[in-house]
C-alpha cells in the first residue's frame, strides 16, 4: 500500500482555502484546519480499510465522496463565518463614525 502523506494533503487543503479567503483566512484558520485534519485522517482510514478488505472496491468511492461532501460543508461554513466577521468589521467601522455623522447632518441618521 502506497504511503498517504496526511501533512501534505492538509497543507494543500489549507492553501486552497486560504487562497480563496485571503485576508479573511486567519479568522477561520483554526476551525478549518482542525476539520481538514479529521477529513484527511478519514481518507487514510478508507485506504487502510480497502487494503484490509473491510471496505470493498464498490464502497470506497462512495465513502470518499462522503468525505468530499464534508469538505465542501467545512468550506461553506468557513466562508460563512468569514462573512460574519467582515459584516462585524463594517458595522464597527460605521459605529465608530456614528456620532460624527449624526452631528454633521443634525439628526440621528446612523442608529
Amino acid at each position, binding site marked *: 500500500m502506497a504511503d498517504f502523506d496526511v501533512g501534505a494533503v492538509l497543507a494543500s487543503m489549507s492553501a486552497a482555502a486560504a487562497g480563496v479567503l485571503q485576508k479573511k483566512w486567519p479568522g477561520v484558520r483554526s476551525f478549518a484546519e482542525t476539520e481538514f485534519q479529521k477529513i484527511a485522517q478519514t481518507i487514510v482510514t478508507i485506504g487502510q480499510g480497502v487494503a484490509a478488505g473491510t471496505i470493498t472496491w464498490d*464502497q470506497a468511492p*462512495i465513502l470518499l465522496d462522503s468525505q468530499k461532501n*464534508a*469538505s465542501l460543508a467545512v468550506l*461553506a461554513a468557513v466562508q460563512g463565518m468569514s462573512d*460574519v466577521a467582515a459584516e462585524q468589521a463594517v458595522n464597527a467601522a460605521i459605529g465608530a463614525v456614528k456620532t460624527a455623522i449624526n452631528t454633521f447632518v443634525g439628526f440621528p441618521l446612523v442608529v
Partner: protein
Amino acid sequence: MLLVVSAGCAVKWTPYYDPTLDNKATSFQQDLEAYLTKLENLQAPVCTYQQNLDFYEKAGGELAVMQTRVQASPHNTQLLEILAALNKNFAELKTLQQNAGSSCLNSTVIEVERAGFQRIFESLLAYELALKANEAPATAPTKH
C-alpha cells in the same frame, strides 16, 4: 456615506440565526447517531435497508423541513451548501445499505460514514453559533 444613508443602521448580508434550524439539526444528528450505533450492533436480517425503512422515511422528512427553513432564509448560500452536503451523505448512506443487500454494513464502513456526517454537523453548528453571536443583543425590558 451612501451605504449609511441607504441603510440607516447596521449592514446585514449574512443570514439571521435560526434557533429552530439549530434545534432540528441537533435532533437530526441525534437520530442519525442513534441509528448508526444501532446498526453497529445488529445482525442480519434486521440490519438491512428493507428492515429500516422507517428510519429513512423519518430522517428524510427531517431533512426536508431543514431544507425548507434554509430556503426561506435571506443570504442563505452557505447554509444551502452545507445542507446539500448533508443530503448527499444521507443519500450515500442509503445507497451503501441498499447495495449491501441482505448483509450488514461493517463497523469500518459505518465509522467512515459517521466521520463524514460529524464534519458536516460541526460545520453547520459552528456557522450557526457564529450567526447567533452576530445577533444584536436583545434590548432589556424597561420599567413603566
